[in-house]
């Protein structure tokens, strides 16, 4: 069984797929999360859609012929990589391997933000958390605790996320309106006013006592004697 890599099967479109086109298509399809239309790919590669489709079809049969663990599929008008169903049993085993039934701290925090800020974008969640939230969002999506609820009407139209009915169920409430109000936020303490003359030493002593003005806590004893 020798794959006919050099010839495009299907017979429609150009006879030979350009190696650069193949490479570009495989690379793009590796990173996309949603199926991509052949049209879109054609625009990015600046080649005719025909050629894109022909190359994708060629790749599709190549993977089958070579017995790869992934397949290329055309769904919902777009193309995407999927795992080969023949390997599903291994993938399932892997997915279950060491998988905790508890949410990670990051996921829990992200869930709390989505619950109280929904609908909310991934970028906004990252901003609030101060760390990249992609992993946590993906994991919550997979657990069915949050879902896509639309797109924001801003450039790029980022996806908006909200909580699901599964989330309500697990939390034991029937509507998000039943979520407790957010605890009183601790306001940032205002900076102390500049002390008047006469009060400087006292202020310094206070700061010292708080350990704020101490340059190296490790030197405390030595410096204070």
């Amino acid at each position, binding site marked *: 069984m020798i794959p006919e890599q050099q010839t495009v099967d299907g017979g429609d479109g150009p006879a030979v797929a350009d190696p650069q086109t193949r490479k570009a298509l495989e*690379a793009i399809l*590796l*990173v996309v*999360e949603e199926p991509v239309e052949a049209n879109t790919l054609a625009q990015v590669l600046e080649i005719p859609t025909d050629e894109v489709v022909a190359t994708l079809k060629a790749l599709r049969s190549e993977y089958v012929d070579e017995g790869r663990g992934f397949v290329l599929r055309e769904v919902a008008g777009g193309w995407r*990589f*999927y795992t080969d169903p023949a390997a*599903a049993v291994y*993938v*399932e085993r892997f*997915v*279950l391997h060491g*998988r905790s*039934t*508890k*949410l990670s701290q990051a996921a*829990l*925090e992200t*869930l*709390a933000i989505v*619950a*109280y*800020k929904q609908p909310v974008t991934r970028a906004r969640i990252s*901003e*609030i*958390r*101060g760390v990249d939230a*992609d992993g946590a969002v*993906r994991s919550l*999506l*997979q*657990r*069915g*605790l949050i879902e896509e609820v639309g797109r924001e009407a801003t450039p790029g139209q980022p996806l908006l996320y909200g909580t699901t009915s599964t989330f309500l169920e*697990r*939390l*034991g*409430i029937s509507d998000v309106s*039943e*979520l*407790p*109000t*957010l*605890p009183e*936020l601790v306001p940032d303490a205002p900076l102390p006013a*500049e*002390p*008047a*003359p*006469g*009060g*400087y*030493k006292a202020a*310094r002593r206070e700061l010292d006592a708080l*350990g*704020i*003005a*101490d*340059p190296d806590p490790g*030197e405390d004893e030595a*410096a204070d004697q």
Partner: protein
Amino acid sequence: MSGTYRVAVGSFEGPFDLLLHLIARHKVDIYEIPIAQITDDYLAVVSEMERIDLDVTTEFLVVAATLIELKAARLLPQEDEPDIDDLAMEARDLLYARLLDYRMFKEAGRYLGAQLASLSGFVPRAVGLEERFIGVLPQVQLGVTPQRLAEIAGQALAAKPEPIVDVSHLQPVRMTVREAAGMVVDELERAGGSATFEELTAGCRHRVEVIVHFLALLELYKLDLVDLLQPASFATLRVTANPESSWETSAFADMEEYVAAPATDEEVPS
């Protein structure tokens, strides 16, 4: 001062970055900083920064102070003043030490940047599970009550935008000239109107504090609030409150707001 060339202001990551740049311009080894020239160049750049209202951080000024100290020590008559000499030497050594450290990490940063750039073409696949496997996942336990979830949300939303007040990064001594002036006035009043510089700075734990006190004295002198008396070079400096002056705080408001943060945690040499 630095008439021969201009340095692009604002393109430096910090005082050491600038210092390294200046040293490179003079084509000298890092160990042979021509203090006088470098100091002038450095001050020229820093003053330019101030003029275009860049956020000149305290460290730029601290390094400037150290450089001035070094330059001053060179210009002073080389008499038997081991104190001054030692002080200058120590300042110089600390400056070198910090420069060397900084240079290493600057290089390491450059290396990391090059590595990251050369490998940026490797984009990992980070696509979630296919629908079919999601059903396989075990039911996840939230493990929290609604109340607890609210608390978590509250914390997450409250903590930003400024991260938790991390006392650690406030640790450098922060003392403004105005503050120091206030302390000098306090001390003078307590001492009955006259005290030596040593007495005024007895409470200082860091050299930078001493420097700030000195700047404060100059400001007070300029405002005609104190008289300074030093009978001879290196003799004791006596500070006397001007009896005709009233200690109006408003006068302090005009003082320039230098904020001193010590370059390192060195203690005042005794």
